[in-house]
């Protein structure tokens, strides 16, 4: 069709050809299902019957009156906030400590041990820690000589699960920051030493400014992954006891598969995506903004 080719460069046309498998896949597996879900969110549908009842924004309004959802949002917020603040901070200390180990074999050993936890499936990590937390024969109570219900105590359960996520991904976060530390030019350290900088000064004025981009990535990864965290909660407590560890992701799946509220579940999925997008954009905007100021 020669008419179409007018105005579109040959390179753009070749570009489309090379991108078409990727675009097809994104359309078929992500965009079209996502739009279908968007449509679903305006209907009341139980997933089985052929009857779809149009309810407009009712599903979105229903969220406000859903007590379990409010509890889930609270838990998700605490969990994500704890992860976004504590994990990158700890990872930064860990990365700096490991990078400053002089012996190569020891440095590699530390790196391997801390990173190894992030290799396993979150579902498997959840199983391992269910064993560790088991009140009677679990490792933790044996070591402490106690009999805490780590996953059965409403005040404790969220933090017990937080510890698992912390254990699993601290090393991965640290590894990203270590890559950042390795990219700091050697001369900058030497220059700072010449100017009389000590350990803290080196970190504050040489390493840290260089790491800002890497820290941003670690924070964004934590926002994205923890807001949608599902496997840990599903396998360890399934939201219990009495919704004390219910998070938005588990609530969405339960509403769809146990309650048959597919429209409502769809609406909540969209709210979750929206919150994720907004937080990531705000965070990136803030960090970019600060960079310009400096």
């Amino acid at each position, binding site marked *: 069709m020669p008419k179409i080719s007018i105005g579109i460069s040959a390179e753009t046309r070749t570009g489309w*050809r090379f991108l078409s498998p990727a675009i097809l896949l994104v359309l078929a597996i992500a965009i079209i299902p996502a739009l279908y879900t968007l449509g679903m969110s305006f209907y009341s549908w139980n997933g089985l019957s052929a009857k779809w009842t149009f309810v407009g924004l009712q599903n979105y309004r229903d969220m406000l009156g859903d007590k379990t959802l409010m509890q889930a949002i609270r838990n998700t917020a605490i969990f994500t906030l704890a992860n976004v603040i504590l994990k990158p901070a700890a990872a930064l200390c860990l990365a700096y400590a490991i990078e400053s180990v002089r012996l190569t074999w020891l440095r590699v050993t530390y790196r391997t041990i801390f990173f190894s936890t992030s290799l396993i499936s979150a579902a498997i990590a959840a199983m391992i820690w269910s064993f560790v937390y088991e009140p009677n024969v679990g490792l933790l109570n044996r070591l402490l000589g106690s009999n805490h219900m780590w996953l059965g105590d409403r005040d404790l359960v969220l933090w017990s699960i937080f510890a698992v996520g912390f254990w699993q991904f601290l090393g991965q976060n640290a590894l990203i920051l270590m890559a950042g530390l390795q990219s700091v030019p050697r001369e900058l350290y030497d220059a700072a030493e010449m100017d009389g900088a000590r350990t803290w000064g080196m970190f504050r004025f040489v390493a840290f400014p260089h790491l800002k981009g890497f820290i941003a990535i670690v924070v964004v990864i934590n926002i994205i992954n923890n807001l949608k965290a599902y496997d840990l909660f599903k396998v360890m407590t399934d939201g219990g006891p009495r919704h004390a560890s219910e998070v938005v992701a588990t609530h969405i799946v339960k509403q769809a598969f146990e309650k048959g509220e597919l429209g409502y579940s769809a609406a909540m999925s969209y709210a979750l995506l929206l919150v994720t997008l907004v937080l990531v954009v705000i965070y990136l905007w803030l960090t970019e903004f600060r960079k310009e100021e400096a």
Partner: protein
Amino acid sequence: MRRYHPLTVVKHLVLCLLSLAFAGPFVWVIATSLKASSEFFSPNFLPMDGLQWENYTQAFVTYGLAHNYFNSLTVTVAAVGLGLAIALLAAYGMFRLRFRFRNTVFVALVVVMMMPPQLTLISQFLLFQKSGILYSPLALILPYTLGVLPLSVFILRSFFKELPIDLDHAARMDGATDLQIVRLVLLPLSVPVLATAGILTFIQTWNEFLLASIFVRSDWATIPVAVANINNIATQDGNQPMKFAAVVLSFLPLFVLFLFLQRFFVKGLASGGVKG
């Protein structure tokens, strides 16, 4: 004698204790997996009644983990292979040609990465049901292939940016078509970065749990789902240490992979994560 700064001593002490705490659960799980059933409730940390390797053969053979290994391997290799090929083609289109819509496609990929899986879960389920691939391995391979794309494209993007465009021009001068440029010029050069992307996405795919627990039945169950099932069954059967053996079997291949291919991880996490 060398004198050490007190801070250095504290650092080593903390690192040492912390790494013990991090490795502890693994060591304990492995130790328990070799206990006899009767010994499970005893307070000993280590198995005292001889090493029960039968727990492993039982998990592997009787409970069928061998079959689940085959499933996981099939699904993961197919998705990663397909995903890398599609990512390479797309990266060529986006970053080696003057393609006007590169930013649109790129942003779409970033948003796809942020989507909670719950958002598309039910729609995908219905779509797969309609098209008759639900409960077949394709129902996992297709979404997993999509999952391979974002990270691979990020990694290829930072690599292609540093690779001189003159390479492509020279090849085109010699009469190479676009596909030949990708296959004969860029692919051989991209092997190390593709390896990095391949390993990182292999692990992500191998470990996926939510879709695997819904889109296929037990005949195509992958390792994480199968181990979760064994976890439930073994509790009823009273064979507790065998659960631990199943858990060890689930992470062992990834540990081996990591030990041999460590250098790719460090580089990949840096380039894929940051320059994206």
